[in-house]
């Protein structure tokens, strides 16, 4: 297990380093000068030069990359070009919105999808199965931003129960989390159903039934735990999609989260913020994959021994 962990950590660091080099180089190739975005169309050349100096953009590339990485290793994320405040402060405020949003959406999605998927599998071929899977098919096809707009129209504009946008406390996260969770739940429910159906046909389930277990006990004790590996895999992938999904949903709901920050930072060429954010997001995806691997090992001891 220790070797497994050490190996994973090495991969994590190497991937982060690769991501940092990639994003740094891509941003340099991208046309656009942060100083001219800030100073606009009337700026004079000497004003632009003064701004370049202020931002440290007058240094050559080969100096800027190591400076950035060295600062990151010290825990210093730098100062945002456009906002002129430490990037760490920006990130802290934004993570406080995006992380609860992603976790809430994930929790909602799992809480809906697994019972529904198991239920549909257990009642395979019945009307209720067809109904649940029909709704799931609809859920897979509905884009989350459109769902978000509909939710706002109903709950904010018509009923006035929840804010239409912005962040006014945890209740502001409810509608966006639902908008993010429903399409994900639909996918997850379908995966759960087919995975449970597959294990229900396995010999060990028949054996369990043969030795006298009830249908429900055989389902929950034997079929479901064995069906979880593909479900966990999809959940891991979905977490990355949730991070991407927040970019759109945060714009629809006007939430000041990480998604909107990265969107703005790219448009304004706030290079340091983009660099930090990409490394952070890459890091979190890697960590989630790592957790998924650990979950595999817990669910199926054969994988940890291998």
């Amino acid at each position, binding site marked *: 297990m220790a070797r497994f962990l050490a190996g994973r950590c090495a991969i994590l660091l190497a991937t982060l380093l690769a991501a940092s080099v990639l994003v740094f180089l891509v941003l340099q190739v991208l046309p656009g000068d942060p100083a001219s975005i800030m*100073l*606009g169309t009337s700026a004079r050349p000497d004003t632009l030069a003064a701004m370049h100096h202020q931002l440290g953009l007058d240094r050559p590339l080969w100096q800027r990359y190591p400076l950035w990485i060295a600062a990151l290793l010290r825990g210093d994320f730098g100062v945002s070009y456009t906002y002129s405040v430490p990037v760490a402060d*920006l990130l802290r405020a934004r993570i406080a919105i995006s992380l609860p949003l992603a976790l809430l959406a994930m929790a909602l999605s799992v809480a809906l999808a697994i019972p529904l998927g198991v239920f549909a599998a257990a009642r395979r071929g019945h009307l209720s199965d067809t109904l649940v899977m029909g709704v799931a098919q609809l859920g897979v096809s509905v884009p989350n931003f459109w769902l978000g707009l509909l939710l706002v129209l109903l709950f904010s504009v018509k009923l006035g129960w929840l804010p239409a946008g*912005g962040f006014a406390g945890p209740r502001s996260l409810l509608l966006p989390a639902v908008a993010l969770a429903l399409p994900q739940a639909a996918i997850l429910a379908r995966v759960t159903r087919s995975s449970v159906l597959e294990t229900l046909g396995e010999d060990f389930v028949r054996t369990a039934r043969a030795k006298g277990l009830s249908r429900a006990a055989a389902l929950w004790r034997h079929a479901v735990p064995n069906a979880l590996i593909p479900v966990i895999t999809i959940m891991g992938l979905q977490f990355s999609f949730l991070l991407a999904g927040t970019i759109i949903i945060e714009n629809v709901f006007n939430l000041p989260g990480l998604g909107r920050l990265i969107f703005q930072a790219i448009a304004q060429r706030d290079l340091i913020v983009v660099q930090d954010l990409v490394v952070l997001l890459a890091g979190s995806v890697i960590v989630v994959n790592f957790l998924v691997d650990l979950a595999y090992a817990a669910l199926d001891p054969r994988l940890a021994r291998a």
Partner: protein
Amino acid sequence: MKTMLQTVLASVLSAALLAPPAIAAQDTLSLGMVLEPPNLDPTAGAASAIREVTYANIFEGLTRIDAAGAVKPGLAQSWEISPDGLTYRFHLHAGVHFHDGAAFDCSVVQFSYARAVAPDSTNAQKGLFEPIARTDCPDPLTAVVTLKHQAANFLFDMGWGDAVMVSPGSAAGNKTHPIGTGPFRFVRWVQGDRVDLERFPGYWGTPAKLSAVSFRFIADPAAATAALLAGDLDAFSNFPAPETLPQLRADSRFTVAIGTTEGKTILALNDARKPFDDVRVRRALAYAIDRRALSAALFSGLAPPIGSHYTPADPDYVDLANIYPFDPARARQLLKEAGVAPGTRVTIALPPPPYARRSGEIIAAELQDVGLSVSLEPIEWAQWLDRVFKRSDFDMTIIAHTEARDLDIYARDHYYFNYQSPGYKSLYAQYLAALTPAAQKPLLVGLQRKLADDEPNVFLFALPKIGVWNANLHGLWRNDPIPANDVTSVYWGQ
């Protein structure tokens, strides 16, 4: 049925989740803006959004621009101009203090103007200060500004957000914690969400009627509409969703105010590139485009067509919008005379604002109709600045020039659309040297006519200002002579 649904849903989402909605006291304002300011120092950044939060509310200059675009006394209560137009003697208000308690006097004027032109200055409009030779302080309440040459717009220019007064003790921190002399002081900035201001009790002039103002940033047009309809916002002074205006107009809760801006929207042409170096081609393009159809499609007809680089809101405006009426046959003939073969390929670079992207589609179809082969190229703002503006690497682009009275851009030696006209330059020099409005008038008219005649760019329309606000709210600007949300005299009535 609807009530039943509501009851069922209400009981499902029980009160535990839903705190009662806060009821806004009637002396605060929550105002929506599309773009968030990158910082809050109008002397260190070009973004209009900086001015839309801080101008007149937090920061003041010696002069100020009012809702009608006129120059009014600001921190200077009056001034005298020497007969040669080179010396401006400003009499400053007494007893003015910055929000941190620092006193305002002539030394602050000296500091602010010197800071704007310093070598390490990041003032986006450094050019405004270029005429200033020096600032003297015969006594603390008198500032004498001496110019190197006459500058017809000097008092107007000193009313811009870029020329506001900043204190030596706090100027460095203004980007994140602005400290000015205005009737509102800064409270907090939640990046990505809002900026909060409150009434400054120590204000030298007429105190603000509102006790607090919150500027909220909502970029998505659908989200902006929802926030207004749900009552989260009291006002949106530059509303981004013109297509929902009929709905808002029909709703008695709202006032819909259509005003003017300085946004001269043009199809900019690269005059140094063939075939746009030929005036016949440029005129042909002007005949080929139906400005009224553009205005109808984009702004339900609320955007006035223009025929020169000047808007109906500017002083001494001449209506030249019909000098090239929509006439595709005439356009084809002119193109033929100029030797432009049918099927000639041209590209229109489109920056992100919706007015550019949407007019691009229509203009492309109209230019195809007169025989050009048009491709549209949507580009990011950063790319536009780099490729089109800085390197002049483009055929055509659609852009709104929002600076007020910027006829000078056609007199520059280097500017992205590469218009070079000695006739225009000499006319502009005469205008700069004219000191009285009466002397300026014929020159301003002449400049407008010269541009309409040469048609260096195809002038399309002036962007309208679409304001939507609570019907009980009064005192917001209907027009945008400069980018600002001056809320100093806003109040709630019945």
